[in-house]
Structure formats: structure tokens, C-alpha cells
């Protein structure tokens, strides 16, 4: 019998509105969601259904108007901004759709940023950054500026940056949206390998059905609520590839 995995993320009745008066738009209308350790949860749905808003609330970048968001049992809404910043720094990694690499820094420095933010000694940070870049297949590109890399390579730098601090929760916003199918698959394989560890949880917002097979569960959102959460279609080959990548 498979052991029950603990919840990393627990969202209860989260509601969020933007704007005032007649311009007020309710984006989240009582979201209920859980994400567990060791899984990749894919969050899908049509544009404007509230996926990214939910992601920002889970990450502690925004607060919900009502309801609660707990990460490992810590209530995000009870934390002030400074505490949430500290919490993010210690526990959460991000992969953005637009990569958000700093163009004037080298690839190595970009990937080391989460460690530098944590005041890790520069040499240690750069060494770990280099090791992570090796893992995502970017050996020898350390000193390049992001502008010299392809979209897929830039996203791999972004993933290296997200993973270098070994975050327990990885939040990805459309990580394959700007990538071709093959590159997108490579990116997801890296994320899959990371997610296999039991102390990790990954939430991926995506429109890209080609990557559904890399998830464990798929949560479908519509009109500000989670409509369904179902197991993702899995293939043996995907699993085995991920296991190889982990090794």
C-alpha cells in the first residue's frame, strides 16, 4: 500500500478580487486545492481563469482576500511582507514564463542569485551554480550573457536558478510556453527529476498539453475555481527518463 504523502500546499476557499466598484473583478471564487510532497501538480485552464493569480497567492507574492493558504502548515495570510519574503527565500523556487534573467549578469551569476540573496559566500554560490548548470546541460556557457543563449537555454538557466537553492516548493509559470516541443520536453524532464524527491513539490501552470504526461495530477481551473483534479496521463518512458535524469 502506497503511503499517504503529506500536503505541502493547502488552499482553502481562497478568494481574490482586483479593482474597485464597477471595475471590480473577482478572479478567484473559493479555490480548494492541495499539492503533495514528491509530486508535480499541473494547473491548467483557459486564459483568465485565475491560474496565475492562484500561483502568486500560493507563492506569497499576493494575499487572498478571504480563505487560507498553508505551506507546510504555515498560514501565509498571518505573515507580514517581510516574513513572507524570508519564507520565499528559504523555501520557494520560481521558473517564469519570460525567464526573468538579468541581462547584464553572466549565466553563472544569474543561476547563483538565490544563493547570493541568502548571503551564501560568493565562491560557494558560484560553485553550486556551476554544478547546477552542468546538470541542466549548460557546461561551458557560464560566462555568456543570457542574450547570447537560445530560448531553451535561457529557460534551463532559469531552472538552474530555481533549483540551485534546493527549494522545497518549485513554482513554474508556463515554463515551456516559449519553447519548441523538443526543448520543452527537456525542460520538463529536468523538473520531473527534481520533483521525484519526496521533500519536493512542484506546481506548474501551463497551457501546453504536450507536457501533461510529466505531471502527477492535473488541476483544471475555470472561472476562478478548481473544477477537477485528476491523475495525469503517465507513460513508462517518461518515468524512466526522469529516473535516469535523477541519477
Amino acid at each position, binding site marked *: 500500500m502506497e503511503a499517504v504523502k503529506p500536503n505541502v500546499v493547502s488552499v482553502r476557499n481562497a478568494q481574490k478580487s482586483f479593482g474597485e466598484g464597477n471595475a471590480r473583478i473577482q478572479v478567484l471564487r473559493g479555490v480548494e486545492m492541495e499539492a503533495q510532497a514528491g509530486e508535480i501538480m499541473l494547473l491548467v485552464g483557459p486564459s483568465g481563469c485565475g491560474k496565475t493569480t492562484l500561483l502568486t497567492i500560493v507563492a506569497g507574492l*499576493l494575499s487572498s482576500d478571504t480563505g487560507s493558504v498553508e505551506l507546510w502548515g504555515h498560514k501565509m495570510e498571518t505573515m507580514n511582507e517581510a516574513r513572507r519574503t524570508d519564507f520565499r527565500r528559504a523555501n520557494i523556487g520560481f521558473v517564469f514564463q519570460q525567464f526573468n534573467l538579468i541581462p547584464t549578469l553572466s549565466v553563472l551569476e544569474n543561476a547563483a542569485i538565490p544563493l547570493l540573496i541568502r548571503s551564501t559566500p560568493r565562491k560557494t554560490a558560484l560553485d553550486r551554480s556551476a554544478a547546477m548548470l552542468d546538470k541542466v546541460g549548460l557546461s561551458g556557457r557560464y560566462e555568456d550573457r543570457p542574450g547570447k543563449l537560445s530560448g531553451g537555454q535561457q529557460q534551463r538557466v532559469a531552472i538552474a536558478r530555481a533549483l540551485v537553492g534546493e527549494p522545497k516548493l518549485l513554482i513554474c509559470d508556463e515554463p515551456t510556453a516559449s519553447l519548441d516541443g523538443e526543448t520543452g520536453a527537456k525542460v520538463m524532464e529536468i523538473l520531473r527529476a527534481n520533483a521525484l524527491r519526496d521533500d519536493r513539490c512542484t506546481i506548474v501552470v501551463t497551457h501546453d498539453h504536450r507536457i501533461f504526461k510529466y505531471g502527477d495530477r492535473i488541476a483544471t481551473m475555470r472561472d476562478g475555481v478548481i473544477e477537477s483534479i485528476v491523475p495525469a496521463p503517465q507513460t513508462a518512458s517518461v518515468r524512466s527518463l526522469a529516473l535516469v535524469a535523477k541519477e
Partner: protein
Amino acid sequence: MYRVALRMLMGDTTKYIALVFGLAFSTMLIVQQGSVFTGLMGRTAAKIDSIPQADIWVMDPATRYFDERKPIEDTAVLRVRGVPGVDWAEPVFFGMGTARMPDKTFASVLIVGVDRASRLGLADRFESGSPDAINQPDAILWDHLNLPIYQQVKVGTVMEINDRRAQVVAIASAPRTINSNPVVYTTYNRALAYAPGERKRLAYVLVKTKPGEDPQVVARRIRDVTGLGAKSRDEFFWDTVKFFLKSTGIGINFGLTVLLGFIVGVAVAGQTFYTFTVENTKNFAALKAMGLGRWTLIGMVLLQATVVGVLGWGLGVGGAAIFGLNITDRSVIAYHMTPQLMAISFAASVFTVLLAGGVSARRVLKIEPAIVFR
């Protein structure tokens, strides 16, 4: 992260150079215009400054500044010599005259008559001829102020000053004054002969105090004993400068230019730096999302602003110094770069940096990290 802040700043060379040069230009304008201003102000009292041997200047009590000469009686010299604390006292004549130039044009000249023996008040440099020839009949020393129209006068030129014969025996070069009249040096008695007939013709008595005497105390003693006006050299220098500042509008006019430079600098540097921050909004937002604290963010922005400020100030001051490299107190351009000017321009740079950095830091703090998902 401060290293990252510097890399963010310097990574985009074009913007970085624009930022630094914006502030450098502003600093240079402030220092350059300020130096011209202090140079001009210094020239209003250059004749006082050029006779460092005299500790005290004795004059008519109503005299407010150097060019406002109300002659006193020749006997004033003897009366001053009798005041306790006076080491020596010599007469000096300053007055205007009209010289007929070799090309038959006329020039208004400043006539300086110095004591035949001490020669106090004579120029300190000579391009040609000898100052010793001043004792020859009709001898004058000519200072053309480096102005080409007056350079037609050479050693040996014979001219008329106030219809009296004068022969140039040397070409002198003294620190320039605010006036652009050529200067004629001659002996005190010959100067009196050139000057229009007046009952009193002595302009100033130059006084050296005895060792250990305070010039201000001796000046007060001279005033009490003789009833004449007497000021220490510094006092007379600053009275003259202040008079020009108050009465000519030079201070306001240059002040406006300096202010304009300051405003342009603040606007250019501030705007450029703010634009730099705006363009980095997403980067700062990503850093905030990844957990960068507010104080580190403020520190990063202020560090960037400080680096721009210090470099811009240094380049600006350097540029202003290069501008003044070949300008001397004899040049047509008045230029005197002082430590005070550098301090003022530094304060202006600090203000610019604090303003630009403060506004930018405020914006960075207000950035919603959630925008990284948009």
C-alpha cells in the same frame, strides 16, 4: 548582492556612460562656471592681492572698495609713518589716463605710480625690457593684458599719456584685474604729472606692520591717530569683492548659471537613473519574488546611485580642472578653482544621488513582485 547591483549598473555600458556623464556634465558646469565666477571676483581685488608686502591699505575714510579712490593728501604718508606699530609706509598712485597709441587710436589706461625706491605696486613679471629703467626720463612700463589691440606697444614705443610724452621701457605682466584697461607703471612723481591736476592725488598709503603686530589692530590705530581710513589687506580685499558682488549683479548672473547647471544635472542624472531603475523593474521584481529583502534592495539602489554620483563628480571636477589647466592669473579668461567649489559641487552631487536614488528606491520598494508572472 551589492556586486550584482554593480553588475546591473555597469553591464549596460551605454546607459552607464549616459548616467555618469549626465552627472559629470552637471558637476563640470557647476565647477567651471563657479571657477570663472571666483576668478572674476578675485580680479576685482587683484591689485590688492598683488602687493602682498603691504599689510594695511590707508585711504580716504569714505572709500568702500579698490576702484572707488578718493585721493588723500601726500602728507598722509608721513602721518601714517608716525603711528606706533608701522614698520614702513609708502605712497602709491592709481588713476585713469588717456594714452595715444602708435596707430593713433586712444586707450583709456590705468596709471600706477610707485615709489621710486621701494617700487611697491609694480608688476611682478616682465616680458621684455627692464623694470630698472623706470627711473629714466618719461619712462613707463606697459602691461597689455595679453589683449592683441594693446600689443602694438613695444619697448621703445613713444606715446602720449594725457598729452605728456611717455616712452615704454619694459613690457610688464601683472595679474589681471576685472578691468580691461592696459596698465601703465611709472614712478609716483611722474604719475602725478600724468594725472589731471587735483589738490589731493595720493590714492593709497601702503603699510607694513612691525613684526608681531596684528594688522587689524594697527589699522585701527591708524584710523584713530590720523582720521584716515585704514583696512588690513584681507579686509580691503573682501570689501572690494563684496562690493562687486552686491552692486554689479555678477553674483546673481553666475549664480543663475550655476543653478541652471545644478538643475540640468539633477534633471538629467535623476531622470536617467530613474529610467534605469524603471527599465530594471522586472529584474528587481524577480529578485523580490526570490526573497530579496527591502533593506538589501534599498542598499543596492543607493549603491548604484552612489557609484554614479562619485564617478560623475570625479569626472566633472577633472574636466573642470583640465579646462583651467592653462589658465593663469594673466589669462584673458578668469578662472580660479577652489576647494570650496569642489565641496559645493560634491554636495550637489550627493543631493542628486540622494534624490535620484531615493526616488528610484521608493519605486523599487513599491514594485509588486507578482508582476513577474505577467
